[in-house]
């Protein structure tokens, strides 16, 4: 088994953190091997954010993702740039709030209303999207059965300090239930 994930979006959404927590959950929770890399440099500051995660039950040598099995895009820029890279038979996951899809015959497309869900969860003025990355992971654990919700739960507890823990766990939980109710496949 080898699965290549490409997490992409805009700086500030937390996609890099999501990739890191996801990889840690695979290593510590599932006993799998994982390699995580990310794009550094000027474009990562406020521009596009990208992180690659490879999860496998064997050694991983080349650490970059050239053709993802699973592509996650939380911005139009990222979608336009990376969607042609998806492997035939792969999956592209987007949020309709951020991304208008264009047709792709070779990969499956899933739309998940992460933004809408997290804004509702956070309440307040409806502007905070804090936790959208964990919401994404919750959904991902249901869609791609590589990392279980329990492993992610433990990884979140490991990674975040006490004051942020509860909120992130709630977002994770919201993501897992979201999949049962609100995923649109194309």
């Amino acid at each position, binding site marked *: 088994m080898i699965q290549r994930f490409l997490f992409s979006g805009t700086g500030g959404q937390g996609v890099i953190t999501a990739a890191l927590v996801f990889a840690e959950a695979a290593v*510590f929770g599932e006993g799998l*091997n994982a390699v995580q890399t990310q794009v550094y*440099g000027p474009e990562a500051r406020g521009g596009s954010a990208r992180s690659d995660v490879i999860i496998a039950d064997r050694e991983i040598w080349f*650490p970059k993702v050239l053709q993802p099995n699973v592509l996650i895009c939380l911005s139009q820029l990222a979608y336009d740039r990376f969607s042609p890279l998806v492997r035939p038979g792969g999956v592209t996951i987007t949020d309709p709030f951020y991304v208008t899809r264009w047709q792709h015959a070779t990969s499956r497309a899933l739309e998940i209303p992460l933004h809408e869900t997290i804004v509702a969860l956070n309440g307040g003025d409806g502007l905070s999207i804090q936790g959208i990355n964990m919401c994404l992971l919750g959904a991902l654990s249901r869609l791609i059965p590589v990392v279980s919700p329990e492993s992610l739960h433990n990884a979140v507890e490991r990674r975040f300090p006490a004051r942020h823990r509860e909120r992130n766990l709630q977002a994770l939980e919201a993501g897992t239930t979201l999949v049962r109710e609100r995923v649109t496949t194309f």
Partner: protein
Amino acid sequence: MTPTGTVTPTGTGTLHFLQGNEVCAEAAVYAGMRFYAGYPITPSTEIAERLAWRLPQVGGTCIQMEDEIGSLCSVIGASLTGLKGMTATSGPGYSLMQEAVGYAIMAEVPLVIVDVQRGGPSTGLPTHASQGDVMQVRWGTHGDHAIVCLSASTHQDLFEIMIRAFNVSETFRTPVVVLIDEIVGHMREPVRIPDAGEFELTERLLTSVPRDVDYHPYFPREDGRLPMSHFGGEHRYNVTGLYHDMWGFPSDDPRVTNDLIHHLMNKLENRKRDLTFTKEWYTDDAEIMLISYGASARSARHIMEDRRAVGMRMGLIELQTLWPFPGELVRERCRQANYVVVVEMNMGQIVHEVKTAVDRPERVFLANRVDGEMITPVDIKHLVRVIQGKGI
């Protein structure tokens, strides 16, 4: 935490998911390094960041200096007074350190320098991959000299190589450069940090000469090692970058000069065997031999396993010691190969050493990439196909 899977590193110790830079820091602490001075530079910054947190926990000192020159100079000072010392930087910072590197070689000061390579020349490509510092490490400082340079491609190897770097530096009283790159430095993967005692650590050899008895800091024992005395402690002696006699005082006596330069070269060049660390796959039957190091070796390993699966007789030598270059080993292993392909991310640096080493240099090819992106297994495959006359 215990590893539960079959592929994550197993054994005693604790399992972590770390960046290569963080592994460097943890390994240094494990090796007994207690003084770090550095000037942060991408892509090496996480080493300083982690040590600023870790060293105070173990009673060590971490200082951010005003620049790289000050960084290495203060490590030299700390080392002379008895601590295992280290600094970390990238190509541009390492350029600034060259004068002090020469001083550490001449004054025979044990220390470790981690160079996390980025694209050059000059400030170059701070956040992208390159392996352009191989020759800077060899010849960056002026004058004839020998240098030890180690490298690694996986985090588990990197942990061990760091410890070896400290052991070699203490054994031979020499600076050792650990040369990694942006990919290995920034990438995260599982690594097992072993329990204390699993790796043998070389501690400093101290003189048995009592206080107030004439101590010769630069008079080698029969085995070539030089017992040290903490500078400013029991004995008064001189340390200089000039050619010096056995007391450390400057000398331009031709015999003293001749003996010293030969000692500095021979103490490393004559012990190549002890200093050569490599990893080899299928070197016994390889028709196409790949030679690589650092992150490039990961791509080489990938394509080698891939081609093996379809029956191609491909092998790989991963060089963990770059300097002194293990020429004899390379010559021996490549004797049967039809082609030798050196995989590196520069315009060709180790490839020239390989050409010098092997019997048939016209069979040595370079698979490289210099656009800041990591060389891919497919890049190597294409070159091999072209060499074989199969076309892309």
